[in-house]
């Protein structure tokens, strides 16, 4: 009969309307309460009721992998040896993988020797340009840059507020562990320590050097080892400066790694020369 299809459709609309009340009755309105279970019911796969969320009185907490503009991890204040230190070693990889090229890093130099140090002097992210892709966090070899969960960044003036400098970017390690506990744990498993890669190495080198009674003070040695490590990572792409500095220095104790490192550096230089020859 003409109009049956129409009537069936209207009946469905009516059912949706009624069901939203039935759903409320079934859960006794507790799904509007704020605990995990109740909010889970409201948004979950079983609900038939109203799923809308009244922002900003209510916000949906974002999942752990959620990515918004990045932040830099610094060591917690109560860390025994490295409090306040950047996790970032200024290796430059994040600046290279960043698709819209919105990361700017000034690598620091030692004022006495003029050699690069594994710590950024300046770090800028233009959050107007950042496309929240998450590459910087994904490819950082030191777990030093992470994607934030705080998406409420609106401001009245983009020119003064939207280039985040190092101060604005830095957040303590404990913050990252609180917003993404599972991921922080997984990263720890990959690194093999809750500490920064270098801190762990420092500890190892420290004990090794005291046994070998090296003429160099342990701390200094560890620092240059860290610099060499940074250099190795950069050299894999193209940086010759750090690597040259670190190896020409000659103070770094040779280990079996260094031969490989030297090889890598040589290859990187070759590639660079080739590219220059092509005019690319």
């Amino acid at each position, binding site marked *: 009969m*003409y*109009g*049956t*299809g*129409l009537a*069936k*459709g209207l009946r*469905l*609309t009516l059912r949706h309307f009624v069901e939203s009340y039935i759903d409320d009755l079934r859960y006794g309105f507790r799904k509007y309460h*704020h605990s*995990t279970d109740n909010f*889970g019911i409201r*948004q*979950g*796969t*079983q609900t038939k009721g109203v799923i809308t*969320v009244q922002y*900003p009185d*209510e*916000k*949906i*907490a*974002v*999942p*752990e*992998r*959620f*990515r918004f503009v990045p932040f830099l991890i610094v060591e917690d204040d109560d860390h025994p040896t490295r409090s306040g230190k950047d996790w970032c070693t200024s290796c*430059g990889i994040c*600046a*290279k*993988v*960043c*698709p819209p*090229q919105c*990361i*700017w*890093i*000034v*690598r620091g130099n030692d004022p006495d020797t003029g050699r690069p140090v594994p710590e950024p002097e*300046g770090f*800028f992210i233009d959050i107007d340009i950042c*496309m*929240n*892709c*998450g*590459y910087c966090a*994904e*490819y950082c070899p030191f777990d030093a840059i992470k*994607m934030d*969960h*705080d998406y409420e960044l609106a401001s009245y003036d983009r020119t003064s507020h939207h280039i985040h400098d190092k101060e604005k970017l830095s957040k303590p390690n404990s913050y990252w562990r609180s*917003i*993404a506990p*599972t991921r922080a744990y997984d990263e720890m498993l990959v690194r093999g320590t809750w500490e920064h890669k270098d801190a762990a190495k420092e500890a190892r080198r420290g004990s090794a050097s005291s046994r070998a009674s090296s003429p160099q003070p342990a701390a200094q040695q560890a620092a240059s080892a860290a610099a060499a490590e940074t250099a190795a990572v950069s050299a894999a792409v193209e*940086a010759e*400066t750090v690597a040259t500095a670190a190896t020409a220095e000659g103070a770094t104790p040779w280990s079996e790694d260094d031969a490989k490192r030297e090889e890598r550096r040589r290859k990187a230089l070759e590639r660079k020369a*080739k590219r220059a020859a*092509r005019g*690319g």
Partner: protein
Amino acid sequence: MENLAAAEQSVERLSIDDSIEYLKANHSQAIKLDDRDGYEGVIVDSDMLVDIARVIRDELGFDYLSSATAVDYLGEGDHMEMVYHAYRSSGGGALVFKAQTDREAAEIPSLVSVWRGADFQEREAWDLYGIRFPGHPNLTRILMWEGFEGHPMRKDWREAYYEEEQKPFDSRWPGGHVHRAEEKNVFGKNVSYPPDIDLNRLMDTSEEAVYQSLGLGVDIERIMDKDGFETNELVVNMGPHHPSTHGVFRMLLTVDGETVTSLEPVMGYLHRNHEKIGERNTYLHNIPFTDRLDYISSMGNNHGYVLAVEQLMSLGRKYNPPTYRCEALRVMMVELSRIVNHLWAIGFWLNDIGAFFTPVLYFIQERERILDFFEAVAGSRMMCNYMRFGGLFGDLPERIKSVSNLTNDRVRDYNTMQFLTEMINERIPRTIDELEVLLTQNEILIERSMGVGILSAEDALNFSAAGPLLRGSGVAYDIRRADPYSIYPELDFDVAVEEEGDMYARYRVRVTELRESVRILKQILPRLESTQGESIWADGKPGAYAPRVPHGESYGRVENGKGELGYYIVSAGGRGGSSNPWRYHVRAPSFINLTPLGHMSKGHKVADIVGILGSIDIVLGETDR
């Protein structure tokens, strides 16, 4: 001799290699094998191009021109090249043929007389590369406006904010002192116009001047001068700001009373030269950029692109294909996005024809849950950036879980597999059932959409239509079956097809595809269970961030929600390949599906135009690129 005679009869079924042999045997003077490292197909003598194209279409049976695009080989031979990918509608691989021309005064005969689907693509090549196509009926700019100077995809053209040929830029590290591009490039001072454009002309606001100066192909004189009177034929400008255009898109209609006599689509308002950006980028950089094409189904965009690059990488020595789990996850994500896409398409098409927002909100509820899932797995609801060369961003998390961080945050915590299972087995099928109850038998919908916007099967093929637009016209061409990729060959599903070719048929195709997607997803779930714990990377660890891609070309295409999405990629550079693409082209279904819009709209009422446009299902991020 007998062999040859037998071959003659089955020419239409020759394999690609044999087809090339056939061409060489019969047209040796016009055909040359493309023997560049990693290239395929033949190079056709420009003068003979149209004839050879006819042979390819009529004798060899490659009746579907998927993609026609240009490449600028500045410094790599110093010529321009048009690359055509033709397929058989019965399935199988591509016959790739190319035509070359000088960079100066570039000219290649138009193929519009053979495949009308070449229309917009040749206009694009003229616009972006400056290649002229003698024989093209309306060779005007399509993405840029006529006051644009130069042809921006040429390798020697530089954008206003030009910094370096290729990323990463040296200024970012180690001496990365931040600056904004606009500080160095003051707005208004970085624009130049071609010498022959008179900007004052733009001040003239009379109707005649506006339409004539923009050269949009509307014959205003005929309209104005009929017997010296203004007649009832009228030019109506729909858009660019119009709710039914799903973005910033414009249609220039000439109407006789309420009846449309011609329609000219005008686009490019959202153009950002995605392809030029893509050629400055490294291969990896491009993945998140593809998200921004068809932003409704970014997973599918990722998939097409990584397939194209993986094809190229497989030419090299060190390449591991993705693991089975990785492929299963990819297919799952893509099918979920197809569901999102079709729900969205049907919902907004209903908005266009007057069923305002009740149905679409029911569908959006389900879409929200799928996006929640994407967010928990990939990190973002729409800009998923999930796939990598040879792998994925990450495996499924065990739980879809959040931690309260901002004030008023409300927390959820689900088991991922349970969430997925309930979605796939219960919620999504239920929504599709409801959708059908609401719409399929609805008399108003039927009357409104049956017989409107008809596209015949021959026209659909000839216009290079793709996706539901093609299958709604009775051509059962679905790349997942016709030229399969990933794990689709082992999955059990049917290709949706309807014969009528009208708006209602396209709706039916989408509903069937929704059901088929659910069918695929149900087959994926046990595969995920059985591969639990398997790595998503062939060698167990994530791929490099700057992979070097071997020299060659590749065309990766997938059946996306809106139709055939293809990526044509050329990797140049020395023997070792390069880490930036030389050519990066997107065969955008939303763009090419607009080619038959004018044809379909003729003779319908103005109010039907929005419905017809909605039934094609375009998204301007992809149309304008």
